[in-house]
């Protein structure tokens, strides 16, 4: 008797997904025998909007690319812009930027831990982690004035200082999270049920991780020692000498499964606490902005020409912004954003194949996907400068995918 096969559609609207994407899984009983990931449900055109505005307006637009990484995109933006325009931020501003970026990493990682607990039906843990996360959101609000879109970065500096009393509050927060991470290690890493649900699930080998071009915690969980803060240090990270957190340093081996990624994320929270503490201890004195006058800044941008790539290690992986300034415009001529989820979503196909239906939410959640990071207007030109139409682009993509599948031995 032939086995009955069902198509289980996950998304664009599904309880496991908070954003639109479609995973079509063909299942035999509980086993997934075929899978197709379809993306492109969110259309925002943020890059196009950015190219119509001046650089300062675009900076705050870039915060809106993602709701969680709302400092990562501006960070990559200011670094790229500063490189292109030849501006250097004062040391104090660099340290403040680093502190805020690391605070964001803490809140993003704790949020992810809650989400993955929710995906496996452990809602108590979701509420507990999110309750713990409130503290860092409060601190962010104290430092920047906002809980989500902080609007604190500026090309060539930051807009707000960290005062002594604020620094004391941040130190209190560090003490709080030192205890909280220890508790999280108990609750997540030592819990037998959590272990049973995540060990061996979404297992990504080192070679596969390299082939799929993954980045961020996903790559580090697979044992690849890669981190923008370590490889191309910027701002205060250059003084600290960040070392990427990989499971082999902590437990001796990297299996690259959902358990390892939890491990990496929890230990990264500790690392972030260390970084913040270092920055507070060694905060240089000085001004906050290289060019405090916005009119002067825009005038300088209008006079400048240049292109650069700004990179920042967001909680999810590396965020890359490419800029081109010139042509007497006060905004970027070209602005191209690559978000980490774009690379990491590639892992879904190979990982879901042969997995169980019960593993779909964990495989989907373990990369911490962000659809609105991914979908922006893209204009692709061939080597002769001609626009490539969507049909040709689709064919090229199919060819590429086929080649990748052959290499990985997936299907066919």
């Amino acid at each position: 008797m032939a086995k009955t096969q069902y198509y289980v559609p996950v998304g664009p609207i599904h309880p496991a997904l908070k954003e639109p994407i479609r995973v079509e899984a063909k299942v035999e009983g509980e086993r997934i025998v075929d899978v197709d990931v379809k993306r492109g449900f969110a259309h925002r055109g943020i890059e196009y909007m950015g190219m119509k505005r001046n650089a300062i307006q675009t900076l705050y637009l870039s915060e809106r690319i993602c709701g969680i990484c709302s400092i990562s995109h501006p960070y990559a933006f200011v670094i790229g812009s500063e490189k292109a325009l030849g501006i250097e931020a004062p040391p104090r501003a660099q340290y403040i930027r680093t502190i805020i970026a690391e605070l964001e990493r803490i809140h993003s990682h704790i949020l992810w831990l809650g989400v993955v607990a929710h995906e496996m039906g452990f809602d108590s843990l979701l509420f507990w982690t999110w309750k713990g996360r409130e503290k860092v959101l409060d601190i962010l609000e104290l430092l920047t004035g906002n809980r989500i879109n902080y609007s604190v970065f500026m090309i060539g500096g930051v807009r707000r200082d960290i005062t002594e009393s604020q620094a004391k509050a941040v130190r209190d927060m560090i003490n709080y999270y030192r205890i909280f991470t220890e508790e999280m290690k108990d609750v997540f890493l030592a819990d037998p049920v959590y272990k049973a649900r995540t060990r061996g699930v979404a297992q990504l080998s080192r070679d596969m991780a390299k082939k799929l071009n993954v980045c961020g915690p996903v790559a580090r969980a697979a044992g690849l020692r890669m981190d923008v803060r370590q490889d191309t240090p910027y701002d205060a990270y250059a003084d600290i000498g960040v070392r990427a957190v990989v499971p082999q340093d902590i437990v001796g081996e990297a299996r690259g499964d959902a358990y390892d990624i939890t491990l990496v994320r929890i230990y990264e929270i500790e690392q972030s606490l260390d970084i913040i503490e270092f920055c507070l201890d060694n905060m240089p004195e000085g001004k906050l902005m290289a060019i405090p006058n916005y009119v002067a800044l825009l005038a300088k941008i209008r006079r400048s020409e240049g292109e650069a790539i700004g990179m920042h290690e967001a909680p999810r992986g590396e965020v890359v912004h490419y800029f081109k300034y010139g042509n007497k415009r006060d905004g970027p001529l070209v602005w191209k954003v690559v978000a980490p989820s774009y690379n990491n979503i590639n892992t879904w196909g190979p990982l879901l194949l042969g997995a169980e239906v019960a593993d779909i939410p964990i495989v989907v959640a373990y990369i911490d996907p962000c659809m609105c990071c991914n979908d922006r207007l893209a204009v692709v030109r061939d080597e002769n400068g001609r626009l490539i139409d969507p049909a040709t682009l689709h064919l090229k993509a199919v060819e590429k995918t086929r080649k990748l599948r052959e290499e990985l031995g997936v299907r066919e």
Partner: protein
Amino acid sequence: MTPETLLYALTFPILGVFLGLVYKGVDRRVSARLTSRIGPPIRQPFWDVGKLLLKETVVPKNAVAWIFNAMPIVSFAASMTLLLYIPFGVLKAPLEGYGDLVVILYLLTLQSLAMAIGGFASGSPFSSVGAQREMVLMMSYEMPLATVIVGFAVLYKSFSLTTIASTPVWGVAGPLAAMGVLLLFVALLVVTPAELAKLPFDIAEAETEICEGMLAEYSGRNLALFYLSDAVRGFAMAALEVVLFFPFTLTSILNLNLTGTPYYVVEALWFLFKVMVIYLLAITLVRTSFARFRIEQASRIFWVYVNIIALVGLALVWLGV
């Protein structure tokens, strides 16, 4: 059938539905408090049922409509019948002369079966996967559940619940058998969340995986009936555990000399309190402190660990009698 039986038969289901929904409300509230939330008011399940009854009942295009519509009624009827077999404190079960523990076992199975068949009939892939899971889960937990019931039959030489309720099990059993009964109780406690499709065994309804599974396509009146039968089943299961393992009356514990109405009122309240304690321990606390298992993990838990506990319990009971 005496007029008394008829009266019971009419009042018990109404009381059962009311209590089931109240217990569900308390369960939600306590679970919320355990996770630092405020939670809905206790009357929320009543509002939920009311809202569902007002809403449109949608039947999917490719569903087998008559099976799809019939199954909620079967499930609801089964849960109502179930109530009539469970002695309510010192009151006798209305249908005690017409069935016993084995019937209860079948009625409990019938509800899960109705949900699974309804899921298959709905023609939705989520429901089909959910129904498959429910069948696997049923096959896993029926064995320990049956073992528990056989254990009681060995002990009492009878399947009648009223006999069991009238003489507490701890008085009948010797020390060895008492240990066996304790193991049976543990096995039944583990089976309870699976029987009621609650975490960590709500695999068939897993929200984040298959969007509530078997119930994915149900709406309006049909969903309300499933909701009600689920509420009643929760109450009935906890009541069953109380009747089997803690049938002590308050008057016997405190040596009270009560008669007439006060006696019945006090005993009824005592019974409800016991059921509440079991409900909170076996359902609320467990579902707040566990993650959902995968289906093969759940099967292994029941087939290996819970089965071993139940069989050892049965063996001890058999040796101790």
